[in-house]
């Protein structure tokens, strides 16, 4: 901070008060940040300790360390395969969303389409309004008529449709902030639009593509309503659905299974997030304005 080094154009006696106030502000700030840290870390404690405790309870405590709990995971017929199902759904949806959103965002960013902002904002509103619960019934009907019941492709398509507006929104933000002179330069050298896309635009907005990809994966990974609604039987069910059944079905929950499965189910998104944020920086590009 520079307050204390800045010339203070006031009379002498106020100097100490400025310093004291500055100190108090700093103390206040750190206290606040520590409280925030506590608030956000507290619920996560259990996830870090219980999987390794030989007699896990719902209380977070220093574990008597063991890895035996993970054996419970192997005994459950659906635990590991459900994670694979989640990977399949997440990868499929993310690929579809990133590809389609990138193409659409690029066209919207670079070509003046009449009413594009109204269109985009309207779709974004619709996508945040029409979430699973509100359209649960028609979605089921739709899937039934398109013969997409118990089909993982159906889940992927429905999730993509819901994620696309926001993905286009985020990516257009990235594309808008890329100077057009790169593309114009390539154009003067004779590059075709597809070459420009491949050589210039995709590498330039790679952080944006990564952000959207991570965001889509995280969304699908956590979504349980759509697969719960559309997929019959536990062999195709993703981890979100299995997790839900673990603590709602069959009376007393098996905390060994629940804790280890929670951890295993959480790790991929957490690791992916750490990887992407350290590689590209996971933040809003310039921010969403207006």
């Amino acid at each position, binding site marked *: 901070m520079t307050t204390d080094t800045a010339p203070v154009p006031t009379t002498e006696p106020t100097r100490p008060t400025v310093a004291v106030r500055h100190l108090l502000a700093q103390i206040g700030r750190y206290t606040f940040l520590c409280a925030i840290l506590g608030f*956000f870390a507290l619920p996560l404690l259990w996830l870090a300790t219980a999987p390794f405790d030989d007699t896990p309870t719902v209380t977070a405590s220093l574990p008597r360390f063991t890895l035996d709990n993970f054996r419970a995971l192997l005994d459950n017929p659906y635990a590991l395969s459900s994670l694979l199902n989640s990977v399949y759904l997440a990868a499929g949806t993310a690929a579809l969303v990133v590809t389609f959103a990138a193409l659409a965002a690029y*066209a919207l960013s670079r070509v003046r389409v009449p009413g594009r902002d109204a269109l985009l904002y309207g779709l974004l509103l619709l996508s945040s309004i029409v979430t699973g619960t509100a359209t649960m*019934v028609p979605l089921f009907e739709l899937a039934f008529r398109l013969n997409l019941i118990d089909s993982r492709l159906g889940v992927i*398509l429905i999730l*993509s*449709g819901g994620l696309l507006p926001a993905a286009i929104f985020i990516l257009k933000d990235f594309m808008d902030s890329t100077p057009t002179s790169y593309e114009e330069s390539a154009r003067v050298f004779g590059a075709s639009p597809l070459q420009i896309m491949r050589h210039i635009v995709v590498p330039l907005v790679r952080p944006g593509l990564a952000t959207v990809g991570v965001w889509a994966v995280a969304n699908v990974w956590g979504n349980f309503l759509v697969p719960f609604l559309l997929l019959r039987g536990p062999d195709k069910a993703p981890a979100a659905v299995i997790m839900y059944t673990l603590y709602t079905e069959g009376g007393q929950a098996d905390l060994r299974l629940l804790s280890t499965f929670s951890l295993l*189910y959480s790790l991929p998104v957490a690791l992916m*997030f750490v990887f992407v944020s350290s590689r590209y920086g*996971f933040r809003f590009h*310039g921010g969403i304005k207006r």
Partner: protein
Amino acid sequence: MVQVTSPPDEVVEGARPVTGASPAPAPDAAGLGRARATGFLVPALVLILVFLVVPAAWTIYLGVTNYRLTGLAAAHPEVVGLDNYTQALGDERFRTSLLLTLQFVLGSAVIGQAGLGFAIAFALRDRRGPLRRVVEGFVLLSWILPSSVVAFLWIALLDRDAGTLNALLGIPGTAWLLDHPMLSIIVFNTWRGTAFSMMLYAAALENVPRSHLETARLAGASTWQQLRDVVFPRIRGHVLTNLLLISLWTFNDFAPFLITAGGPEQRSEILPVYVYKVALSGGELGFGAAISFIMLLINLVIALVYLRMLGRRKEPA
């Protein structure tokens, strides 16, 4: 009109000295042409149309029928006009649920997520290094973890007998989820969603020029005055966009169901949970769709209110 712009007018101008003639931005920098641009748009638009717009429209139709999950009306639903709507508006349970939802949005989105998100972003604004990374890391982790895991973490934290919270506070036996169900899900949703607001405000605060803050500080403005006179006017657009998005998301959030399932005695039965119970548990699909449509309308009103506030901002400028 509302639109998203990463500020090319600010960022790009800062990076590139603007001199000489500055013609209107090229309408088609990459030479795509209308036809190819349309081709780029079509795949995304088709998916959105089929799996987003069509179900939304379908909801409207179902809302005027007596469609049920089982029974006679399942095979041959009849159009019953506005019966579902009059029934809903006259229903005490619906009105209570609506009030609870508004509490939920106000408490967890507007005050909780936006307030806390801004406070964290502001406290970290000129911090670099490990403290910032650790705080941001935990906040983001709570956002990124799957909702069914997070829900169980909170059930464990708030458990009456063995919950970590009661152990820490030394008040075992406090049944948070039974005695304070709304407070529980409001705090839960604040915890879960603050990351978005924090990131958005962090990006917004970087757009506030240092020189403006320094000018205010030289003039002797307190932190609060700096916030009010310099920071807030500058990020007003970000604030409103953020509030709009998180209000809508929170309004439609189903995750509290995983913790309280609307209970006890419907004391935390927000609208998404209500719809779920009516339509899928109760099997009254037509009635559920009518309530969904009312939710859509309320969302629209929320959106329009924010958009008006945004629009007003632009007039004096």
